[in-house]
């Protein structure tokens, strides 16, 4: 049950994701964006960072990386696909999640803990949490403001306050099947008590749970 953690040029949270998943008993390996198959993996994480330097729009160039076709197939097959921060932006650009991410309302980068509330537990990233559960995890983004012109996106985690202007205070959004989820704050930054919070475990545990064959 191995997770592919995709590395684009400019990605920078890949090692953190591997560390956090391994600490929780999972197994994760880095996969370069020019790879074209994910056959030996059971799930995918697109980690945070600045793929292609965020040139043009965040995620706009990364979505054309060769690996993304495999990620799409994965998503279609109902396998778990999670994008964190920049990974969320890439999934939106790739059309695997609805909406798009634009600059924060106050046009400034935000790196701090935020409180979020789980509103939908029917996804690969939230199944081990309880509806209404409040968690504290770090946000770290400039383009964290999710807009959804269709108004039909499925919001599964919400900020309890409104740090960045995101529609419906969305912190995480899922596809209809619940196997593709994008989350803006970083669960992997909140898994070790030494660093201040372990609330991110609820999300990563959900993800690991979803790998157990039914």
């Amino acid at each position, binding site marked *: 049950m191995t997770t592919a953690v995709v590395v684009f*040029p400019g990605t*920078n949270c890949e090692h953190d994701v591997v560390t956090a998943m391994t600490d929780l008993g999972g197994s994760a390996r880095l996969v370069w964006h020019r790879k074209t198959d994910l056959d030996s993996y059971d799930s995918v994480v697109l980690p945070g960072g600045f793929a292609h*330097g965020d040139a043009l729009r965040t995620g706009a160039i990364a979505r054309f990386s060769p690996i993304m076709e495999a990620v799409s197939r994965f998503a279609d097959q109902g396998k778990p696909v999670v994008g964190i921060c920049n990974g969320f932006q890439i999934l939106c650009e790739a059309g695997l999640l609805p909406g798009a991410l634009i600059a924060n309302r106050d046009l400034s*980068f935000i*790196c*701090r803990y935020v409180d979020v509330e789980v509103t939908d537990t029917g996804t690969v990233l939230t199944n081990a949490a309880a509806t209404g559960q409040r968690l504290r995890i770090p946000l770290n983004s400039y383009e964290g403001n999710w807009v959804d012109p269709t108004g039909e996106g499925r919001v599964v985690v919400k900020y309890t306050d409104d740090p960045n202007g995101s529609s419906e205070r969305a912190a995480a959004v899922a596809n209809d099947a619940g196997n593709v989820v994008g989350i803006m704050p970083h669960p992997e*930054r909140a898994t070790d008590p030494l660093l201040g919070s372990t609330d991110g475990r609820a999300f990563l545990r959900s993800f690991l749970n979803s790998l157990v064959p039914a």
Partner: protein
Amino acid sequence: MTEQPVHRLLGMTDGEYESVVGILDRPPMPAELAMYSVMWSEHCSYKSSRKHLGRFPTEAPWVVVGPGENAGVVDLGDGWLAALRIESHNHPSFVEPYQGAATGVGGILRDVFTMGARPIALWDQIRFGPLDNPKNRYLLNGVVGGIAGYGNAVGVPTVGGEIEFDPGYTGNPLVNVMCLGILKREQLVLGTAGTPGTMAVLLGKATGRDGIGGASVLASASFDEESGAKRPSVQVGDPFEEKKLIEACLELYEKGLVVGVQDLGAAGLSCATSEPAGRAGVGMEVDLDRVHTRESGMTAPELLMSESQERMMAFVAPERVDEVLAIADRWEIDSAVVGEVKAGGTLRISHQGDLVAELPAATLADNAPLYDRPAQRPDWLDEIQARPGPDLSSHDPADLLAKLLDDPAIGSSAWIYEQYDHMLFLNTVVGPGSDGSLLRVKGTDKGLGVSTDGNGRLCYLEPRIGGARLVYEAALNVAVAGARPMAVVDNLNFGNPEKPEVMWQFKESVEGISEACEALGIPVVGGNVSFYNETDGVDINPTPVVGLLGLADPMPQDPPRLSGAADGMELWLVGPAASGNLAGTAAQRLIDERPGGIPTGPDPEMAGDIIRLAADLAHFAPVLHDISDGGLAVAAAEIAIASGIGVVLDLPAEEIFSEDPHRFLVAFHHGSIDLPAYARKVGVCGGDQIVINGSSLRLDTAATTYREALPRRMR
């Protein structure tokens, strides 16, 4: 305008030009003149400061690489090393704050990963004029934006720093950045060209006309009304390119593919060819036509002087060159084999079939001019030191505390550090917003404590005491995070060295830093000098900045935090009794129009004991906080605000706002900790007020004032 000889336009004196003619035994060709002019600039050659920098203690058993290389390297034990370096980008940040600060970050990162280390954290030290001036707000905004824009995107967290305001920085802000990297011993790489036959491979960004003359013109001359004319030199940072370059270089080191590496900073290719060759005692043949360029028609001097960012020169054995090029290709960075190392010490550079330079490589660094500039104690200093301190008797302590919490240099810097990714890599155990940073070294029990400290006002009043106090303050800051001081880097920001008063301030500061390092038994492993920080003839306060690295082995598993105070805990002061001298304090800055007096000097012996004690206490005390800007009152208020609990202080009047050195506060439940006899109980935690000898301030008001001090001025 009268015709000037070219060497003068390039910032070279007639005497320096004559030396070049002497070395070559003929007049230099244009490309040669360009190379000497950048390499012999103040910024690259340290010609005014070198003599004094020799004063620093630089040796200790744990020093692996001392000053002189791109970064200092120390041994952390168990096969781990740390690389540390600090750098200034003052003048470029005034010209263009965002790009100036951004390229400063890019440059300091390269200094560290040149050594084979992975950069794991950055710290910024920034200084501006008062924020009621819109220009200063613009500069602060741009500088913080540039550090955030580059640091966040390159993927290295900025985990702390410091900020100071003083009218003297209005026309000359200071932007310093420090970077820490870690590496396994076998990955250490030096800036050497290796043996004859080694190939020089240029990696990274295409070369353009960026910052031509930047080193000699921007970093080494003063600002005046014409500085607008210097603007074409502005460089643009590209953190994405740097990120790829870091990963590619780290892979090269891991696979043992390079003999040596040199980054291209100020002086670009001139430096990256001559310095590694000089260090290895070899020569080199370089073909400029192979350099990948962004613009067409660049001349040889332009190619040699360009400061285009995000470039590295790797020295590679010929049979490994293909592997190196393949790795560069995989990381999607450009590369070119531009030269070959030759025996004999001559650097030969050709361009479009012509030999454009032929000179002894080592002379660019080794024969740089060395000035023993006159130094003289300023005659205005007596008058300033004789001024009486502020009179606090007519001030209510709680009122004064409220005003201090509203000082943007004392109030929370969250507005700054929340724009920085300060958590990446999952190492930040104690992050910004307390004293020193504490970073874990994953896979070991070790932690690294780091603090950077500067104080222009103290150094203005008495540079030797000021310099020494910076070291003690930084040492105590890392100690309260559980680390023992290990090594120092310094960044010496001063005015015009051609003025004897400035040279004296410089010399005295170096002396103070050196004495304190000797007393603590820690070496200086690197640094940087920035002179000519003056505007229209007025020099900045002498502003040395110290960056100190400490080792916590083992690292406290539950280190003290400002937020650790609880109802009923006692607050104790550890350190000498306050002298009552308020020279150079925040209280003085609030009350008196101008600083005056002589700041309290350190007690080196006691300081050592106190620093050791703090590092021990950090393994079990819930709260430790050193006393600095704003004195005990502010330190106690910071604990109260962070912990969300009031505090009642009862203490002698001269203790309240004293900033006497090497003193700290510790909070704990009665009887849980034994302290030495000189420690005194100064208060108790509880309630919803901060009470100082009966006068009180509501905790929620204090918290709002503290949080808003900076952001409200930036709106």
